[in-house]
């Protein structure tokens, strides 16, 4: 079944998305995305039910002189297909992902506060209510616990809801439903009911939003068995992760960040879905592995510029999958560089960094030349004052210092 190829410049929403599954890609992209060289490792990883290592490279612009590996559906000579990209902001990328999935599967619905007529407090669902109706994009009353539970009940009976928390912090009110029902019901029912929900929302420290609107819930949710957590950081991975999360049969919590919604990037016109369990190699290097996610990726990249000027070669990995960790990508990196720095926005105590430190120590202790350094936010409720807020979160200068210390 050939994918429909529309004219250059038009956005193509192909229907057969399965062939565009890209679970095994190792990609690195610079933030501008103009030159997007992509390598897919051709080796088969895993057993007979291993990850789908298809040689399909559908979102790459081939390096000059290299012919792009065409998807089997493209007509020969149509390499230009892969140049089709459009510029989006991150919230638009999320919306595109959501829109495509809602078109593809009528059981996908959205529920949350102000997602319908208002278009979402960060405009992620703008226009969807007009397109799909009030029932598919449901404006709920302010009752997080109950509408999250409602989403779970709907998922058990056949729908695929995307539940939005207007701010991730509000989902603390839904903790009962997320912990007890979302995570556990598949198990306690002996596998009879599945809960294919996506719980998403903006979290993280913004610009002087105050303590309660600046919470990082990934640390609170990470112990819940039965859920997956992913954090998006670029428009490209936002759309891919949104689509993957909606298609996933497990409950997935998708963490977005308030300050990243206006990031701009050129993303492919063609449909693509990313893997929920894989990490993203942002910048390969040799001297130190820097593991990060969400907004801190940008602080790390900023620090990386300084570090490169100083002669260091950091390898930056955006872990993306907060639960479970992609220990393969991380492990390969640790085996190469022997030094690890974790930069996160979570609180110091019991955060994602703490778990990651434990996981790396457990699995790769022999490969480490130095103790793992974890830079996290201070264990402080986020203050309102700008200066104080800046000091609670990890800044690029701290990252540079830490790398210098680590590499002594």
């Amino acid at each position, binding site marked *: 079944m050939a994918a429909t190829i529309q004219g250059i410049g038009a956005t193509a929403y192909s229907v057969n998305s399965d062939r565009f599954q890209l679970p095994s890609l190792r990609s690195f992209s610079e933030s501008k995305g103009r030159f997007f060289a992509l390598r897919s490792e051709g080796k088969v*990883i*895993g*057993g007979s*039910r*291993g*990850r789908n290592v298809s040689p399909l490279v559908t979102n790459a612009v081939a390096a000059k002189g290299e012919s792009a590996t065409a998807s089997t559906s493209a007509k020969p000579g149509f390499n230009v297909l892969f140049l089709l990209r459009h510029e989006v902001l991150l919230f638009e990328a999320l919306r595109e992902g959501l829109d495509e999935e809602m078109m593809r599967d*009528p*059981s996908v*619905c959205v529920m949350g506060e102000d997602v319908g007529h208002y278009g979402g407090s960060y405009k992620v669902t703008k226009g969807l209510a007009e397109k799909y109706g*009030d*029932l*598919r994009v449901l404006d*709920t*009353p302010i*009752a997080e*616990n*109950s*509408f*999250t*539970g*409602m*989403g*779970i*009940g*709907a*998922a*058990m*009976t*056949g*729908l695929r809801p995307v539940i939005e928390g207007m701010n991730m912090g509000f989902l603390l009110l839904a903790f*009962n*439903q997320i912990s*007890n*029902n979302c995570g556990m*019901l*598949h*198990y*306690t*029912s*002996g*596998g*009879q009911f599945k*809960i294919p929900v996506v719980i998403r929302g903006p979290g993280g420290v913004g610009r002087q939003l105050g303590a309660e609107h600046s919470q990082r819930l990934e640390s609170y949710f990470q112990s819940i*068995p039965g859920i*997956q957590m992913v954090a998006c950081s670029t428009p490209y991975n936002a759309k891919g992760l949104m689509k993957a999360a909606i298609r*996933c*049969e*497990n409950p997935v919590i998708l963490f977005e960040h308030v300050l990243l919604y206006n990031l701009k990037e050129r993303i492919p016109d063609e449909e693509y879905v990313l893997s*929920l*369990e894989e990490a993203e190699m942002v910048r390969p290097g040799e001297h130190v592995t820097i593991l990060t996610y969400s907004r801190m990726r940008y602080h790390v990249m900023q620090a990386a510029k300084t570090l490169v000027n100083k002669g260091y070669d950091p390898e930056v990995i955006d872990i993306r*999958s907060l*639960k*479970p*960790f*992609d*220990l*393969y990508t991380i*492990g390969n990196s640790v085996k190469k560089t022997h030094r690890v720095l974790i930069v996160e926005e979570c609180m110091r105590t019991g955060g994602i960094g703490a778990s990651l430190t434990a996981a790396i120590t457990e*699995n*790769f202790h022999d490969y480490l030349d130095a103790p793992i350094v974890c830079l996290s936010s201070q264990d402080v409720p986020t203050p309102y004052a700008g200066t104080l807020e800046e000091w609670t979160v990890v800044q690029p200068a701290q990252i540079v210092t830490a790398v210098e210390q680590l590499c002594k």
Partner: protein
Amino acid sequence: MSCAFSAVTMAQPNPLTTNRLSTYAIKLPPFLGSTRKLRPHSLSKSLPSPSKSLRSSTSSVSDVVKELKSNLLITKEEGLELYEDMILGRAFEDMCAQMYYRGKMFGFVHLYNGQEAVSTGFIKLLKKDDCVVSTYRDHVHALSKGVTARAVMSELFGKTTGCCRGQGGSMHMFDKEHNVLGGFAFIGEGIPVATGAAFTSLYKRNVLKEAGGNTVTLAFFGDGTCNNGQFYECLNMAALWKLPIVFVVENNLWAIGMSHLRATSDPEIWKKAPAFGMPGVHVDGMDVLKVREVAKESILRARRGEGPTLVECETYRFRGHSLADPDELRDPAEKAHYAKRDPIAAMKKYMIENKLVNESELKAIEKKIDEVVEDAVEFADESPLPPRSQLLGNVFADPKGFGIAPDGTYRCEDPKFTQGTAHV
């Protein structure tokens, strides 16, 4: 109460063919929200009594049902079905108590003795597609819905042949085939799930346009839950979107050791429904026929797309809150009062007095149920305990969720995973 709850429809018992309802084409209103008009001067007058409120009405069903003296409410077949279901519930729970004290089951076991009329009265009117959501006192709800006694008993024994493969236990009875959506340990936790199931029904009818998508959901919970936020939040949402759900309060007056009167500012729970724009009904929950009449009406209401109903069933549990509860706080006089109103005895009396059955037929049912329960115990006893390989199996619907191991394979592909010994 002078204002009857849909007096016209209540006066005639519904025909027997209620179970085979044609699908009603319901058009969603263009505005998905409340259609109540704001009354600007309502505060200056005294609060309108429920009987005068425009949209909703409440009543005490016992009065209405008394009018139906001349018609028998049930046929012989229906009567036998109801009786058998209640006997099954009673015998099963009694057996649970025995098994618990013999050390065959552990943990918290909450028995339903005395409340059988509510379960039987409501659930026997449902189709297989309709959903039931319950609390930790859920054995009898599962049995009434059609889950076999064997499956429930095995689940209680923690065996792998249980309805949840032994992973749920007494408080988490789930069955996909019969649409039993649990079994929840925290009170109030199931009400949003029930609301979600009702939402799916509405969605299937209006968005997916599936034929026959008129399923109704019943949410059972107790008096203690009616002070919980989730209850009110869901009443609001259900009434707002006219979800096909019936909220059934099994008011047995006690939440472990907390009397309902000591915990609730206005103990009349059915009165709280009109505040949300839905009818509230109070019914004698020790009389299965009265419960069944109310249930018929509320389920029909939900199927027609008219929205939710709150039904408060005044009932009583003959045993303690759970098998660990010494039950010392309740007044013996109160217990005696309700023991006299045992729903099974009442049903037996009704059927014999109205010459629907004779004693021997009822005895035959009791004997049959005894055998069913004995068989269930035997089956559960002989069933195997869950092996280690079951430990990691159902954590994720898609086991890729366990992630990627350091060697690059998915953890679920590790052979030790299926044995349950993998480190995840």
